[in-house]
């Protein structure tokens, strides 16, 4: 069955440090993958999307992600985090012929000053 796993429920990094949030997926075929961010009391905002092609995709606010078919992963990265990145991050896979999204459990990112 299709699924998404985010193994880290919480991550804390210092402001200015680099960041990696992990995402593993299980999907038959080539997936469409997404990272969304949710700020407190808000909906989901799309950070970036992967469609078959270049494995490294660029998103908003300096985020990028790398797709790896061999590792079934789609990790999110940022070179230098800012306090405004404090939020919950969700990885999701789109079910091709249905369109609905399957979400991971989310990773809560905290920033140390």
């Amino acid at each position, binding site marked *: 069955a299709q699924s998404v796993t985010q193994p880290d429920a919480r991550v804390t990094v210092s402001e200015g440090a680099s960041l990696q949030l992990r995402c593993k997926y299980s999907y038959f075929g080539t997936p469409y993958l997404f990272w*969304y961010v949710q700020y407190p009391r808000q*909906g989901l905002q*799309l950070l970036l*999307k992967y469609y078959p092609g270049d494995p490294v995709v660029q998103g908003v606010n300096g985020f990028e992600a790398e797709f790896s078919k061999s590792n079934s992963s789609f990790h999110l990265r940022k070179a230098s985090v800012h306090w405004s990145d404090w939020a919950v991050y969700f990885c999701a896979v789109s079910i091709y012929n249905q*369109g*609905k*999204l399957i*979400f991971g459990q989310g990773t809560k990112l905290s920033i140390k000053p």
Partner: protein
Amino acid sequence: NSKVIQTPRYLVKGQGQKAKMRCIPEKGHPVVFWYQQNKNNEFKFLINFQNQEVLQQIDMTEKRFSAECPSNSPCSLEIQSSEAGDSALYLCASRGRREQYFGPGTRLTVL
């Protein structure tokens, strides 16, 4: 930034009461989705529409949930008889090319 509009932002109901929320998708997006996000950040797909027609929905065996997306009117999701377990954030999304854009959600609290 998403242009999906959801109203109301907050909804408080007693058990057994009806709860209705609305969604206006982004212009030009023909496919609309409803998801439920609980307090543990677990998402449940509820239903989706394309041009007013239901594409897929969960097995709403309790028949308490209903939804529609009429032409030239907001889409809506209604819970006929609210239960405490329905307390959650209800998210509406509309789909562009393949990606989905979400509204701010309606937070339902059932007392």
